[in-house]
């Protein structure tokens, strides 16, 4: 077990943890706007850490380059999608949850 492998394992574990946390949030949070936060966690922290962990495991530069491209792509597209979704929902008048409201 080298240092790199341990580090990669730690990153992967942290990524997996964030992904599952976000998914639980997606199911448990009370309304649409709060759920966007949960999804944001899986797309940024979860995906980033898992891809970094995989990056430490490769020896070929081609594979590493592709991992970096995937990371870059997700960094650009997923916030854009989340932002557009939230704005469209706001325009469409999806109500915001306040403390005491029923879950929906």
């Amino acid at each position: 077990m080298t240092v790199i492998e341990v580090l990669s394992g730690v990153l992967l574990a942290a990524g997996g943890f964030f992904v599952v946390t976000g998914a639980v949030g997606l199911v448990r949070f009370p309304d649409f706007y709060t759920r966007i936060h949960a999804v944001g966690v899986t797309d940024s922290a979860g995906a980033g850490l898992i891809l970094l962990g995989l990056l430490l495991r490769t020896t070929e530069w081609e594979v590493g380059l592709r991992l970096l491209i995937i990371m870059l792509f997700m960094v650009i597209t997923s916030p854009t999608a989340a932002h557009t979704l939230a704005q469209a929902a706001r325009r469409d008048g999806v109500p915001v949850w306040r403390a005491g409201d029923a879950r929906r």
Partner: protein
Amino acid sequence: MTAFVLVNISLFAILGATALAITRMRALYEATMLTALFSLVTGSLFVLLDAVDVAFTEAAVGVGISTVLLLGVLSLTRSREAVTPRRRRLPAALVVLFTGGTLGYAAQDLPPFGSATTPVRDHPVTETYLYQSQQDMGIPNTVTSVLASYRGLDTLGELVVVFTAGVTVLLLLGPLTRRNRPVKRDLVLADYRVLRVVSGVLMPFILLFALYVLFHGDYGAGGGFQAGVIFASGFVLYGLVFGLDRVQQVLPQRVLWVLIPLGLLLFMGLGVATVLLGGSFLDYDTLRPDDPAAGQRLGILLVETAIGLTVATVMTSVFFSFTGRGASR
């Protein structure tokens, strides 16, 4: 139970649950979105079953193009389904039980999953495709060499089907059947500045990625069909964000109508050229008599380009036909 089997079964469980949900859902927008999800999972399953090229195509087609087409049709028509009457259910259930039972019974005679001695494997053609191809053309991706060279005629037939379907959609929905001129209207999504900027920045990279997929198909997953669909999704994204008028300034319909048959003609012309050079139809050895392998590689590259051209233009023109229909109503 290996990890492979467990992952396989969980993906199949997800697929089954999605399929049942699609069956039960009467709101068709939601059902269509679940079909996109279904395609994503199928793509992952194809990766596990070693079919990377197929996974590529399934992702690009199932999640990108066919979702866009279904949603476009729903926005033109009605998006709620009527309740299925009870009298329709019983015959369907009987047919399904009978067919499923027959298939399940017949599956017992199939070779075990993953066995190395199936009739498919033992046929001499396997040897040719997997190992002889390395001497014949020297391309690592055997899927590409089988697609474009060994079974080139088959692929030509498939391309003719795609071409015919594109022409049919144009005849059914194209400008000839319009009742009035398209009206210019405001756009919705282009108001979102972030989306506008990001899509504008992404566009060249999508087209670059499509070209990479086209020319890298010899060495890794990819090829003409996939590249064509990715090209089309680039234009679809642009059209969705900026509107049909803007994308048709970039890619006018007349240009599309010239390009659709061009790919097919290139493919057929290559076949005729090989016949004129003294070989058989689509026998690329004759392109470079001194070095048959290089001739094969040249022929495969030309064929993949032709496929990419036709598929990309057919998909884009189908998208234009559906969305243009909405603008003109």
